[in-house]
């Protein structure tokens, strides 16, 4: 049962290793779980899980592994009684205490489970291990001496209920996009350099120079470190992007609040960028600026993040006069603009709010995926995209040959 929890977690991609297991086994040996499965749940969570993004996976696995343990009376009483008696854990060490010193964690776990099995067999005879009628020797009365207050514990709160509630599913990184998480992901979008006014006292250099100067104090200043990232955001608005307005506006909010960027510009397009980009999300013609101007004004140090579903009629991407709005149509194809953007800037990524599994089924998405490295608009996707923008240069995207 316990190993199911361990491997269940690993199957879910939760990084649990022997070290964490040892921690859990040690606290159980010390009897910290007292009398309840809920305590066991809390302790297991505190020792095994190291990020709230895995809380949901933990809840799911725990609910699966211990399903029915509390619901069916006999099973629950047995397990809880067993858990409640520290003697069970001392019993493990009575004859094995010497061995334990030499045992590695794996072995320790195995012995521990063996003991558990033995206990089970003995119980088949029909007797109870400890206590009577399911009463634990370590009642809650002993847990809360007078004058000490522990809150947040309603009587019927059970580990299974907590686990099955799955209250932490919002923290999963692969599904939801909340501003806090996006901001964390975007925090990586920086490369610190020293530029500008030298007004930070460089202590090491000062000491060094002073010593060279025979003790006459010589102050050395250097420039402050600052973020050197310039980000250009191109965003698809309207039409098929409407359902994504909410997640995308969250991304935008996070970007705006990310004042750490050296420079930030956002332009908008519908379906595919052509010779004009909107400066506002409503794409008014009077506010539009020529795409060529943007390319001229922003040099290749700018990093480009394009957000769009890349789903459109193939003609909009591949044909001249492809713009869906007839007032703007021109001879240059959408795909050529995309390649111009890619070729102009050193780093560009495409964030797609559609689930990655759908990308293969949309023709235009497949084509655009070959031009820009494409990532899902999930927290994981944004992290990967930021890495692609800022990290060591990945192998260049296959790229389509110019037509």
């Amino acid at each position, binding site marked *: 049962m316990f190993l199911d929890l361990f491997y269940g977690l690993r199957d879910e991609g939760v990084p649990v290793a022997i070290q964490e297991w040892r921690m859990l086994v040690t606290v159980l040996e010390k009897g910290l779980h007292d009398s309840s499965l809920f305590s066991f749940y809390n302790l297991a969570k505190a020792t095994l899980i190291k990020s*709230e993004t895995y809380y949901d996976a933990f809840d799911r696995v725990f609910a699966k592994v211990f399903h029915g343990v509390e619901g069916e009376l006999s099973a629950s009483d047995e397990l809880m009684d067993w858990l409640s008696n520290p003697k069970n854990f001392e019993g493990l060490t009575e004859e094995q205490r010497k061995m334990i010193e030499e045992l590695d964690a794996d072995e320790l776990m195995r012995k521990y489970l063996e003991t558990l099995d033995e206990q089970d067999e003995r119980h088949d005879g029909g007797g109870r291990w400890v206590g009577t009628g399911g009463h634990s020797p370590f009642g809650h009365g002993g847990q809360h001496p007078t004058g000490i207050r522990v*809150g947040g514990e309603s009587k019927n709160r059970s580990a299974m209920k907590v686990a099955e509630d799955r209250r932490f599913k919002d923290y999963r990184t692969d599904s939801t996009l909340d501003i806090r998480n996006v901001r964390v992901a975007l*925090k990586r979008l920086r490369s610190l350099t020293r530029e500008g006014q030298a007004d930070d006292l460089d*202590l090491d250099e000062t000491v060094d120079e*002073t010593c060279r100067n025979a003790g006459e104090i010589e102050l050395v200043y250097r420039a402050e470190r600052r973020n050197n990232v310039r980000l250009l955001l191109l965003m698809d608005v309207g039409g098929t992007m409407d359902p994504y307005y909410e997640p995308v506006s969250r991304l935008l909010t996070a970007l705006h609040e990310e004042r750490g960027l050296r420079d930030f510009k956002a332009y908008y397009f519908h379906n595919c960028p052509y010779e004009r980009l909107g400066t506002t999300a409503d794409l008014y013609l009077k506010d539009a600026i020529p795409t060529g101007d943007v390319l001229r004004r922003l040099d290749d140090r700018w990093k480009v993040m394009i957000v769009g579903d890349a789903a459109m009629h193939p003609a909009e991407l591949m044909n001249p006069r492809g713009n869906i709005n007839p007032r703007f149509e021109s001879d240059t194809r959408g795909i050529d603009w995309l390649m111009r953007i890619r070729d102009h800037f050193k780093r560009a990524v495409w964030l797609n709010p559609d689930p990655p599994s759908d990308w293969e089924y949309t023709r235009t998405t497949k084509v655009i995926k070959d031009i820009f490295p494409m990532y899902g608009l999930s927290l994981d996707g944004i992290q990967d995209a930021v890495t692609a923008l800022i990290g060591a240069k990945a192998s260049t995207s296959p790229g389509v040959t110019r037509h």
Partner: protein
Amino acid sequence: MADEKDFYRFQGTDGYIVSRPLVEAVNCALALERPLLIKGEPGTGKTLLARHVAEGLGMPMESWHIKSTSKAMEGLYVYDTLQRLNDARFGEGDVGDIRSYIKYGPLGRVFSASNRHVLLIDEIDKADLEFPNDILREIDEMRFTVMETSEEVAAKERPFVIITSNNEKELPDAFLRRCVFHFIDFPEPELMRQIIDVHHPNLDTKLLDQVLIKFYWLRGQSELRKKPSTSELIDWISALLRSGVSQEQMQNHIPFLGSLLKNEQDTTALHDFEQGEGQMPDSWSDLGPKYNQ
């Protein structure tokens, strides 16, 4: 207050209400002698926890507030070379003794103390990405060497280390592996009542109900750019009490909105909602099934 099982137990204090999972995480870390890593939304009392753990266990506390410029070295000790140089130039102090120019940081002070301390390392994620790795060994082994004097400082009593993080940066795996972790979830109404009771005892129950209904309703609005936190709720209640707002005035209006919402767009949105025909909830049943089990 060590009990017969030979480890410390924390049970909460009169001024700080804790949930059971948090109590168990604290005790777990105490029993394992591992650092406790606390994460959670701003305003959920991460920093306060350390102070109250120290109070509850009767240990003195030392805090190390991390800034973006903090270096791991500063936590151990600082060798004040400039002071020494200055003294040498003007013939002051005992320049020959390097020891008098070694100033211990929070870690150094806690290690060299004769009694067990609670050490708070606050907002560790503010520092450089490599920072947690740099203090890994010192926190693990509870010892370090002062290079200038080759003296070793080893902890006589392993301090209980509480680390808080606001999630601004990822922490390295090797660091996480050594910690007991707890994420402070936002308190549910039941726990929130107890928390409020600590700060504002004798609050009228009906008024409190209205306050909590409005508060949880507000937090439930997904469009909100910054959700109000527990500490803001407490401040808000102080403002309400001082102005003597009655329960009736709270029915369809949120007074002193400024203490709850800190973002202009949020404030404007709510103002528009009030001016329009928007109906605020005034009973728990208006809030949906989540609060009505």
